[in-house]
């Protein structure tokens, strides 16, 4: 393992680089998956009861979700303050082809050779809450390699780094809001939330809308992952329908013969809040560049 990776500071999410036996001893005092699953299930059951009693379905993750241990000291304890978005918040920064090269959407051509793993195409549309395409906007992704290893000095999972895969990509959405990345299916990887904690395979997505209030960073998952019920991050979204919105669909029409499997995932942003008059006043010039 390269030195710059082993010489990093302690963190609850670092996996000890030691051999499995030593790691196991170190982790003895740590909570088990059974402990965490009990907490996750209790929250899920309480939510189901609330729904039956007429509570509104939750569509975003809970900020306060104790099974994700790192959130305990990092969630606001006071209610979010309702605000009407004003002026600057009703507009979004403009990105264009000056910012992003067309080849940045292919994560498999960033080095001299082909990365290892299952080549995939991930494609879909970015839409606003009215179903309108978000055109000419920035989409950024990052992910682990096929072994579940990130090119990041704090990732100490003893899985191989792939010299032909960095795992970052960008693109600008088309006029119909479409995006398309060619990449490698990421592997699941262990983390230190509790003993034997594994993240389901996922790709991080960062998105902008036509208004800054639509800004979102999220994660796309793959269908049928057996780790979903065990993962405190996926489960921060307590509503099953809402969770399902993060799972891509296998799409054989996107699959390219003898080349790559295709997954479709559409993203819907909140809003918009801006009125048509304001929209017309400024136009979409920045978005179309």
């Amino acid at each position: 393992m390269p030195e710059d990776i082993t010489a990093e500071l302690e963190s609850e999410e670092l996996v000890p680089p030691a051999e499995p036996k030593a790691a196991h001893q170190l982790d003895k005092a740590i909570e088990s998956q059974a402990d965490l699953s009990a907490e996750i299930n209790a929250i899920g059951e309480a939510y189901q009861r609330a729904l039956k009693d007429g509570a509104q379905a939750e569509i975003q993750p809970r900020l306060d979700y104790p099974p994700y241990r790192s959130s305990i000291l990092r969630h606001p304890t006071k209610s979010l303050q309702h605000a009407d978005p004003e002026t600057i918040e009703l507009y979004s920064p403009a990105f264009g082809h000056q910012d992003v090269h067309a080849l940045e959407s292919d994560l498999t051509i960033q080095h001299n050779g082909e990365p290892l793993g299952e080549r995939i195409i991930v494609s879909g549309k970015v839409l606003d809450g009215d179903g309108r395409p978000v055109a000419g906007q920035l989409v950024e992704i990052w992910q682990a390699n096929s072994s579940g290893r990130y090119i990041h000095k704090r990732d100490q999972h003893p899985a191989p780094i792939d010299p032909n895969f960095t795992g970052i990509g960008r693109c600008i959405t088309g006029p119909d809001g479409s995006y398309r990345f060619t990449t490698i299916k990421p592997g699941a990887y262990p983390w230190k939330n509790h003993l034997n904690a594994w993240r389901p395979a996922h790709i991080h997505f960062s998105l902008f809308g036509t208004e800054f209030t639509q800004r979102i960073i999220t994660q796309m998952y793959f269908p049928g992952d057996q780790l979903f019920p065990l993962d405190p991050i996926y489960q921060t979204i307590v509503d099953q329908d809402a969770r399902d919105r993060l799972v891509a669909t296998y799409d054989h029409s996107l699959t390219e013969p003898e080349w790559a499997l295709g997954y479709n995932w559409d993203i819907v942003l909140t809003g918009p809040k801006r009125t048509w008059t304001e929209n017309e006043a400024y136009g979409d010039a920045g978005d179309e560049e």
Partner: protein
Amino acid sequence: MSTKLVPTPGQTVGPFYGYALPFEKDNELLAPGSPGSIRLQGTVYDGAGHTIPDAILEIWQPDAEGNIVQRTGSLVRDGYTFTGWGRGAVGNTGVFTFTTVNPGPTKPGAAPFISVALFARGLTNRLFTRIYLPEDTEALANDPLLSALDPERRKTLIARRDPDGGLTWDIRLQGGDETVFLDFQ
């Protein structure tokens, strides 16, 4: 217009954004030292009062005259074009820094502010907030958001003016002086 769609949920930015989201001059909306440029800095704290080493912020603001800029070129900066948007990851001590301009009022009498999106490991969804300039006390008193807040909480959204002309504004995710975070829905 058409039927309303349900938005896709957010998720935490996680611990490993560091090789993906930052880019060259990401926090330099203007070249440091250029006329009119100021330093905006602050520290991000968790509920135990410890600094957070793995948070990343974005700012989005009007120019010094209060114009909302719609120009590309934030990711590949040419050194001259002010795009109004920047991104800055905190360092090991939880400190973030931007080089920018004082935002102007977007309409006469409005209190100038910078819009902020905050992401962090352990933060399950992004948070929005605002950084107001401290000077125009009349505009601050008339601001719709600020006037809806208790005076103690209002303070968390107003930056301090540094002796060098810059701004200091800290983020506290929890506690008595927890920063006011916004819900636009």
